[in-house]
């Protein structure tokens, strides 16, 4: 009986430890429960991205103004980050426009822009979740009567647990401070 109690206590301690390690920190964006559908058609919870630091942004494929520059700036930033740290880094771009950006549109855009699927994810989610995702990232967007969007253009650096480390509004050229923050994060993780 004593042994059983001992075993149970041990089991509780172990499971307690595992649970504590698994708990998403309060300041993590992974507290948000939503599903993303990727350019490959895979449906995965946002929180399944936990474990890898991320560069995150929002865009839409039919955007002709700033969005192509957002994607270019992400490419440029990724290249500027030191190896081997950047091998741990993933890139996530979520569409503002779920009505037009279906899986086929995302896939076509990824191929056209030569986005390496080993670390690039273009994703869509439903309209209500787009609003929440933008809210948790602190991004603004509005659909215009012509179907285009007004939206804020920013890149965010997210750590492996989903905390926003830093952000930049510099689009169209490299933000050295943002790159330095990414290098620091990746060196420490």
């Amino acid at each position: 009986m004593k042994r059983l109690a001992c075993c149970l206590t041990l089991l509780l301690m172990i499971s307690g430890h595992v649970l504590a390690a698994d708990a998403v920190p309060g300041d993590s964006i992974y507290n948000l429960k939503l599903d993303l559908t990727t350019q490959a058609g895979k449906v995965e919870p946002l929180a399944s991205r936990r474990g890898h630091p991320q560069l995150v942004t929002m865009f839409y494929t039919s955007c002709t103004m700033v969005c192509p520059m957002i994607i270019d700036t992400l490419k440029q930033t990724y290249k500027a980050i030191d190896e081997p740290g950047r091998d741990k880094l993933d890139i996530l771009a979520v569409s503002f426009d779920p009505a037009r950006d279906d899986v086929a549109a995302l896939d076509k855009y990824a191929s056209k822009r030569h986005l390496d699927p080993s670390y690039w994810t273009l994703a869509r989610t439903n309209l209500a979740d787009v609003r929440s995702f933008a809210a948790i990232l602190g991004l603004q967007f509005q659909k215009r009567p012509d179907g285009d969007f007004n939206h804020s253009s920013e890149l965010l650096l997210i750590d492996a647990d989903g905390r926003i480390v830093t952000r930049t509004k510099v689009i169209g050229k490299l933000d050295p401070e943002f790159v330095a923050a990414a290098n620091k994060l990746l060196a420490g993780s």
Partner: protein
Amino acid sequence: MPSQYPLLLLQVTEHVWESVGLWLAGLRIRLCGPYFCRFLVHRTIMNLQIVKNLSSYSRSLGSTTKARRTPGWRLLILASGLLLAAPVQAIDYVRLPGGSFNSVVPPDGKAAPSRVAPFEMRVEPVTNAEFLAFVKTHPDWQRDRVASVFSDQRYLTQWAGPEELGPAALPQQPVTRVSWFAAQAYCESEHARLPSWYEWEYAAASDATRKDARQDHAWRERTLEWFGRPSSRPLPEVGGDANVYRVRDLNDLVWEWVDDFNALLVGADSRDQDGANKLQFCGAGAIAMQQKENYATLMRVAMLSALKASDTTNNMGFRCARSD
């Protein structure tokens, strides 16, 4: 004394109704699925306040007519049993017809009207009592448990405790110091959502007799007066005058969250929208604000556009809406 009859009747039939009410309530709980049950329980907690008021009303009636006092708890059981047994009444929402509407923030940034589809809106903002019932059934939204990514440090700090209102937060006052995420979660619990800005603005443009009273100088004065109210004074309770749609407290009680608060891209200076903001805001840039004379509504836009979804403020509350 004819005035005593309803009370006496209530007392005579009390035991009968008590058992019928409880039996029906039990049946309901056995029959309904777990999700619907949660909804019922939630409704009951929300109704307790009303029931409490009812029983104290009945007691005061009893004492003035020297009739035997009805124990409060019995009435409580009776009434909650009846509330559960009776068809579930929706929290008060009214239908608004919608239509074409000239917003202070036109969708194209110039003068295009916005289109508001028919929708339902909550008659009153959500109260402390209602939000308390919500956090009791949704403990993740209690102030000591909420994820910091969803709410800042000030969340519900006017309450005495995580599950207690206390003297500084009256049950019928609108709940404030709630984040957009918390407001959204509450509305989901009512099978609703936050209204869009255009829905809110459309509903708030009316007065008691007109759907759009914004051209009236007196209407503008009244909506502006609210800004002059010292914020140190305790908030009034919900239940102000109804507008033409039967919606209350839109312009003169609290700031209110809207679903698309983060669609209101008001630049620091919207005069430069075609220049400096072009890179920061893809598309046509920050929206232009029109109808400068409608200052009170523009203030609300400015306030909402300045907030983050996790922010809470002393006077920011909310109400919910539903698509028709």
